[in-house]
């Protein structure tokens, strides 16, 4: 989305990302990926609940545990601390989503991810702005 941010803006849209965690983490995230839009912090995940965003279950949980445990944190950390420890103030099973709202609050698109890799295509966001 970062690379196509200008296309969204050219259609008159305000663009923002909402994330969990802590403000300092959001700042690092924004700087690391050079995001040209605001990154808003929702530590208690109020907006995640309001939008009805899902949490991983079933096979998705297994995949995330494997990824977080073996690939990212390393087997040694797993043995020392256990599996799937989320980073501070984060929930590794939380899924994302997207919302496009027309002026005045008319909802044009809602996307609630069903799994880890279920990201809304930018073309869908652009289509909702048309």
């Amino acid at each position, binding site marked *: 989305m970062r690379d196509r941010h200008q296309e969204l803006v050219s259609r008159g*849209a305000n663009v*923002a990302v909402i994330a969990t965690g802590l403000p300092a983490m959001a700042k690092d995230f*924004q700087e690391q990926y050079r995001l040209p839009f605001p990154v*808003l912090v929702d530590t208690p995940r109020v907006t995640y609940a309001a939008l009805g965003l899902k949490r991983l279950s079933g096979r998705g949980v297994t995949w995330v545990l494997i990824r977080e445990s073996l690939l990212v944190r390393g087997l040694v950390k797993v043995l020392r601390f256990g599996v799937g420890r989320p980073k501070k103030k984060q929930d590794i099973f939380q899924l994302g989503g997207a919302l496009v*709202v027309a002026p005045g609050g008319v909802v044009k698109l809602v996307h609630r991810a069903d799994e880890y890799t279920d990201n809304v295509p930018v073309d869908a966001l652009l289509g909702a702005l048309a």
Partner: protein
Amino acid sequence: MERIEELGAVVLRGADDREVRLGDLWSDRPAVLVWVRHYG
């Protein structure tokens, strides 16, 4: 979506420490909001 008013009333703090009321984002322009899973 029946909860858009609820969502619009939420105020979040940005990475730049400024507060943003979500409803202000779509008060006079369309808004695209993306929720991410976590920071990785």
